[in-house]
C-alpha cells in the first residue's frame, strides 16, 4: 500500500512549483543572507519571507478561485476588475458610515454577483469564457468609477484596515486568512464530490452530462467561487493600502492568478486541479518578485525573469518535453 502512495506523491503536480520555490530559495541563500533573516520588531515577525506571504496573499486568494474555473476548462479575466468594484463598494459604504459587517457582506455579495453574471453568460448563454469574462474585465473598472464617482476613496475605518494590516500570533493576518480559506476550500471540495464534479466537467463535459451531472450548474458554481475569491482579494487589497482606486486596484492581477494556477500544475485545458500546487505556484511567483525587489532589479525589467520562469515550468510540465528529455537520457545511457 505504501508503494503506490509513494509514487503518487512523486507524480503530484505540486512537486514542480515546490521544487522551483526551493531552487529560488537556494539562489537567494547564495546571494544574500538577509533574505532568510527573521527578526522580531514590536512583537511582529519581520523579514523577506514574511513579506512574501503577506504580499502574495492577494495572488494566492485569486488563484484559488481561478484554479476552479480553469479546472472546468474555462478562464476568468475579470477578477482584477471585480477586485476594483468590491474595493470601491466597500470604501464608499465605509465612508457613508456603515458597519463593518454590512460592508463585508456587501463586498462579498458584489463579488458573488459578478461571478454569477460570468457563470450564467458561460453556462447558460454558452458564451466562450474568455469573451464573457472580458466583458466584465473591461466594464468593471467603469462600474467601479461609477460607484466612487470617479474618485479614489480613502479608508479610515481601523477595523477594516486591520484585515490587511493586522497581526495574529505575530504574523500578518492576510496570509493566515488566505491559508485558512485554502484549507476550507480543500475540505469542501474533497470531502464533498464537488471537486470530482469540477474535474469531470473539465475533463469531458459531454461525458459528464451524459452520466447525469448538471454540468452547467457546476461550471456556474466555479465562476461564483472565483467571484467570491476576487471579492476577498479586493477587500484585503483595499484594506492594506487604506484606499480604493477604481483604475488601479487589481490591475493585471488576473494574469498573475492564471500564471500561479498554471505553475501549480492545473492544465488550462481543464480537468485535474491541485490546490496545493496553486498555493506553491502563487508563492513561487511572489518569491520571484520579492527576490528581484531585494536584488534591486529595475521594475521595468522585472517581468522578463518572470516570463522565463513560466516558460521553464511549463516546459517541465509538458509531456512532450518530458518525453524528449527522457529520450535524451536513454540515448545518452545507451
Amino acid at each position, binding site marked *: 500500500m505504501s508503494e*503506490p502512495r509513494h509514487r*503518487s506523491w512523486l507524480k503530484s503536480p505540486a512537486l514542480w512549483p515546490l521544487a522551483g520555490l526551493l531552487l529560488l530559495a537556494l539562489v537567494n541563500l547564495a546571494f544574500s543572507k538577509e533574505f532568510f533573516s527573521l527578526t522580531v520588531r514590536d512583537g511582529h515577525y519581520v523579514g523577506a519571507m514574511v513579506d512574501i506571504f503577506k504580499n502574495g496573499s492577494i495572488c494566492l486568494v485569486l488563484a484559488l478561485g481561478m484554479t476552479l474555473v480553469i479546472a472546468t476548462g474555462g478562464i476568468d479575466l475579470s477578477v482584477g476588475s471585480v477586485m476594483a468594484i468590491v474595493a470601491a463598494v466597500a470604501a464608499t459604504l465605509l465612508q457613508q458610515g456603515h458597519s463593518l459587517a454590512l460592508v463585508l457582506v456587501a463586498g462579498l455579495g458584489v463579488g458573488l454577483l459578478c461571478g454569477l453574471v460570468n457563470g450564467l453568460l458561460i453556462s447558460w448563454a454558452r458564451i466562450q469564457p474568455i469573451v464573457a469574462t472580458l466583458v466584465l474585465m473591461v466594464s468593471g473598472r467603469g462600474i467601479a468609477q461609477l460607484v466612487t464617482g470617479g474618485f479614489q476613496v480613502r479608508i479610515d475605518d481601523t477595523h477594516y484596515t486591520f484585515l490587511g494590516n493586522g497581526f495574529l500570533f505575530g504574523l500578518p493576518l492576510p496570509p493566515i486568512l488566505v491559508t485558512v480559506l485554502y484549507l476550507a476550500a480543500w475540505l469542501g471540495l474533497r*470531502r*464533498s*464530490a*464537488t471537486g*470530482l*464534479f469540477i*474535474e*469531470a466537467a473539465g*475533463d*469531458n463535459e*459531454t*461525458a*459528464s*452530462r*451524459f*452520466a*447525469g*451531472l*448538471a454540468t452547467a450548474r457546476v461550471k456556474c458554481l466555479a465562476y461564483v467561487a472565483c467571484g467570491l475569491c476576487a471579492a476577498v482579494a479586493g477587500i484585503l487589497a483595499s484594506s492594506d493600502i487604506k484606499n480604493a482606486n477604481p483604475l488601479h486596484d487589481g490591475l493585471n492581477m488576473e494574469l498573475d492568478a492564471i500564471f500561479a494556477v498554471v505553475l501549480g500544475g492545473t492544465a488550462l485545458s481543464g*480537468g*485535474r486541479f491541485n490546490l496545493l500546487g496553486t498555493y506553491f505556484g502563487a508563492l513561487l511567483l511572489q518569491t520571484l518578485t520579492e527576490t528581484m525587489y531585494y536584488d534591486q532589479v529595475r521594475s521595468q525589467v522585472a517581468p522578463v525573469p518572470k516570463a522565463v520562469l513560466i516558460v521553464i515550468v511549463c516546459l517541465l510540465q509538458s509531456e512532450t518535453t518530458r518525453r524528449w528529455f527522457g529520450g535524451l537520457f536513454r540515448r545518452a545511457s545507451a
Partner: protein
Amino acid sequence: MAAVEPSTPPLLAMRGVGKKFPGVIALSGVDFTVRAGQIHALLGENGAGKSTLIKVLTGVYAPDEGDIRLASQPIRPASPRDAERLGISTVYQEVNLIPTLSVAENIGLGRQPGKFGFLNWSALRRHARIALARLEIEVDVDAELGSLPLAIQQMVAIARALDLQAKLLVLDEPTASLDEKEVDELFKIMRQLRVAGLGIIFVTHFLDQVYEVTDCITVLHNGEFVGEYPTAGLGRLQLVSKMLGREVSDEEGHAAEGGRSAAVGGRPSSETTVPLLEACQLGRRGAVHPLDLTLRSGEVTGLAGLLGSGRTETARLLFGIDRADTGEIKLRGQPMKISSPRAAVQKGLAFCSEDRKTEGILPNLSVRENIIFALQAKRGAWNTLSRAEQGRLCTHYIQALRIKTGSPETPIKNLSGGNQQKVLLARWLATQPALIILDEPTRGIDVGAKAEIEQLIAKLRADGVAVLFISSEIEEVVRNSTRIAVLRDRRKVAELSGGEMELHRLLHEMAGVAKTHE
C-alpha cells in the same frame, strides 16, 4: 468478382491495399476499381474500412501495402494536396469550406490567380463562374458562402473540387445533411459528370440512393474486400447481407434461429404486466420519425437497423439528450418528461453511448472515479460515497467484469478499449438502473470481452432490468434479444419476437424488401 466492363481500362485500380493502426487492422488486401464514366458506391457498416480506404486514396494515410494506379500510372499520394494535383478530388460530408468567404474565394482558395501576392479579382470571379457553369449551377459568385443553403454549399464544394483537372471525384457521404429535393439536384450533377467521363466514388449509407444513382457497388466488411457487383444485378437483401458480412441462404437463416432459441432462455414476459417504459409516437424532425416502443423489465429489446437508420437517435430521445418534437414517454405507466440525461439518470435510466471517447470516458480521471461517477452524480455533491464504499464498488466491478487495470487509480485513458467499455458498464451498473440502453457495447473490443458483455446482458435480464440493446452485428442482436424492433430509414418498420426473430426475416426487414420465400 466479375468486372462490369472488362474491356475499358480502369481509371483507378487499387490492389491489395492494407493499412494497420496500433492494435487494429483497418484494411487488409482490399481491391477497388473505378472506371471512367462510372458512379461507384463504396459501402460497408461502421468499421468496414470505407473511410480508411478513402483516406489512403486521398493521401491522408500512407498504405502499408498494396498499390494504387490512376489511369495505369502507379501513384502514391502523399497528402490531400498531392492527390488533388494527381486529379483525385474529394468532397467531404461536412462542407469544409470557409463560410465567411464568398463563393468565388472559396472556389479559388489556395490557388488564387494573381501576381506578386496581389489577387486578380476579376480572374478569380471568372474562374468561379466557369467552374459553376460546368455544373449548371446558378449562384452569385460574390455571395457569402455561409448565407447559401447547405445543398448549394455542397455543390460549390464540388465545383471547387472539379475546378482542378479532376479525373476522379470522391463524394464522402455528401447527402447526409441534404433533404430529398437537394439530393435530386446533387444526383443530376453526378449524372452530368458521369457523362463527361469522370469516375465518381460515392460513399453513403442510404441504400435507396445507391440504387438510384450508382452503376457499381464495392462492399467492404471488417477491413476486407467482400466483392464488386453491378448495382442492377445485386438485390437489396443480398447487398445488406454482404454489408453485414454474411451470405444468407434460407437454411442458414433457420439454423441461426435454432441457435437463438438455445441461447436465450427468457421468453417475452406477459403482455399484461405494466411495461417499464412506453414511448408513444416519439419522434424528432431530422432524427427519427415518430415511433412506438415498449420496454419491459426482464426483457432485452434489440434495436436493429443499418447505419443511419435512427438507432442511436432513438436512444438519445429516450435518454433526454435530444428533445423530442412529438410523442410522449410513460415510465411505469406514468407520463414522464425526460428533459435531460440528468433527469433520466434520476429516474433510473442508464445510457452507455456508442462513442466511448467523446461521450463516455472521463479520460484523465481514474478507473475508480469513472466507475463511481454516475452514482455520485445521481446522489449529488454532498451525499458523498465514502472512500471505503468507492473501494468496495470498484473491487466488485473490477472482479465481476474482469476489468484489466493496473490499479483502480490508473487513468482510464491508459486502458484498452474493451476495458474502458467495461468500466463504463460498471459505471451504469453501479447506479442499479431499471433500464439500461446499450448502444454498440461490443464495438471495437476483442472477442473475449464481447462474450463477457453478452453474459452480462443475460444476467441483467435475469435480474429484471429492462435492456435496450443496439448493435450493428445482427447475429448479436438475434442472440441476445427477447424481442427486436427494426428501424429502416429512420422509421420503425417492424417488431419481431419469438419465432419471428430469425436472421433471414430480420435482414428482409432491414433491407426493406418483401419476404420472398414461404
